[in-house]
């Protein structure tokens, strides 16, 4: 606890990525429908607006409108992800940060992902409960939690996540794009579960697995939950 005015710390922040496919007038209504379905979940969530999938030849995209639509729906846009061919000057007035789209990283096919299963990436093992406010990230590997993950805690892994206690907080597997990543827990009471950004929040869960041993996996871009 020194007297320095600040300290720079590394951190991993979970945000939503809003991947725009079409800058049409329906965007506002569609976003509203999505947010209305689980309003408290999206409350003031930071979001990155990904424009890299938009047709780079379009010139008349109104970025300020996109930002207002997000704000009107209770999201907090923090940055634009853009395609290198897209005209940047139009983004400037929104004063949001811009992140260059890294095509290598996101377009990686899961089969080519060398990380799973891998012999030289032994899992990260946590021997105690993960408490509210804590965040644990297993980079390039699986995560094993021997205790419970509390409500308000967050566990992330590039690989699979195993929780041998109750999963009450948030679990995000395959965060760098491994679609084969799975999440296992002894008691499913999760606030949120996500695999490569496909997520389920607690009240949208299949109630049959609630408070029971469960497994989450992706199939056809949909997140499934089944009893173990």
């Amino acid at each position, binding site marked *: *606890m020194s007297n320095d005015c600040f300290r720079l710390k590394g951190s991993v922040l979970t945000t939503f990525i809003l991947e725009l496919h079409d800058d049409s007038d329906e965007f506002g209504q569609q976003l509203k429908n999505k947010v209305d379905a689980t309003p408290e979940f999206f409350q003031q969530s930071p979001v990155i607006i990904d424009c890299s999938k938009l047709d780079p030849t379009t010139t008349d995209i109104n970025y300020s409108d996109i930002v207002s639509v997000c704000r009107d729906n209770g999201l907090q846009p923090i940055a634009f992800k853009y395609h290198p061919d897209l005209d940047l000057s139009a983004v400037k007035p929104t004063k949001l940060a811009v992140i260059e789209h890294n095509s290598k990283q996101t377009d990686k096919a899961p089969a080519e992902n060398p990380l799973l299963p891998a012999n030289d990436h032994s899992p990260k093992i946590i021997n105690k*409960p*993960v*408490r*509210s*406010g*804590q965040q644990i990230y297993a980079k390039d590997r699986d995560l094993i939690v021997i205790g419970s993950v*509390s*409500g308000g805690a967050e566990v992330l892994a590039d690989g699979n996540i195993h929780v041998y206690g109750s999963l009450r907080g948030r679990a995000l597997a395959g965060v760098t794009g491994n679609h084969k990543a799975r999440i296992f827990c002894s008691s499913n009471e999760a606030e949120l579960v996500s695999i490569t950004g496909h997520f389920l929040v607690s009240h949208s869960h299949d109630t049959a697995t609630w408070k029971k041993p469960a497994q989450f996996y992706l199939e056809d871009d949909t997140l499934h939950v089944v009893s173990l």
Partner: protein
Amino acid sequence: MAKIIVVTSGKGGVGKTTTSAAIGTGLALTGKKTVIIDFDVGLRNLDLIMGCERRVVYDFVNVLNNEANLSQTLIKDKRVNNLFVLPASQTRDKDSLTLEGVERVLNELAETFDYIICDSPAGIEKGAQMALYFADEAIIVTNPEVSSVRDSDRILGILQSKSRHAENGAMVKEHLLITRYNPARVADGEMLSVSDVEEILAIPLIGVIPESESVLKASNQGVPVIHDEESDAGNAYIDAVKRLLGEEVDFRFLTAPKKGILKRLIGA
């Protein structure tokens, strides 16, 4: 070897100071030389509950700033031998607390005391982190409701990552104390039960203190509730002190007193 015990909760107003006063007094009553430190700089509450507010001359911050020494500052309890209070200052600002300063004071106290009880301020910021940093053990004070349990969970995370023991790869011994427990409201589903709280926090239970009017009466009189032999809360604290010292004691006051048949008939 002195044991340093922090009484902490995250959430405010759950009963930390009441508990520090009761447990500290209880330990002293068993013959252990005990000091209770008020870490709530700027508020000052412990001295009121201990009934020694008129005898405060110097305070914790004076000692930290080398403006007074410990023997000038420690207040000896009027009722119990071996019991002392290190009061907080009401006026000075919290920035006087530094890890180096606190460590120096704790080391000096550790030479003569068996138990050092640190009454933490609310929150999870600097003040609370300062109070828990040097702890060997922690009493986590929790009310049986969701927000209090969530905050206790957070403080447990901080305890096992940002304390001296944690930084040296060791554990701080954890004790759960549930207070303001109202069995009738638990039965009606308005409050979490003891087992609900235990299941979420997953640490050993050291005491369950019932919600009791005797606590308010005790603080108004400046007599820690553990002195009140008639009081259920006082007796529950006596049990908690025994468990802290390693004794096995059955839990009391977990169920609502049964209504007599007549009362039930007339619906009272």
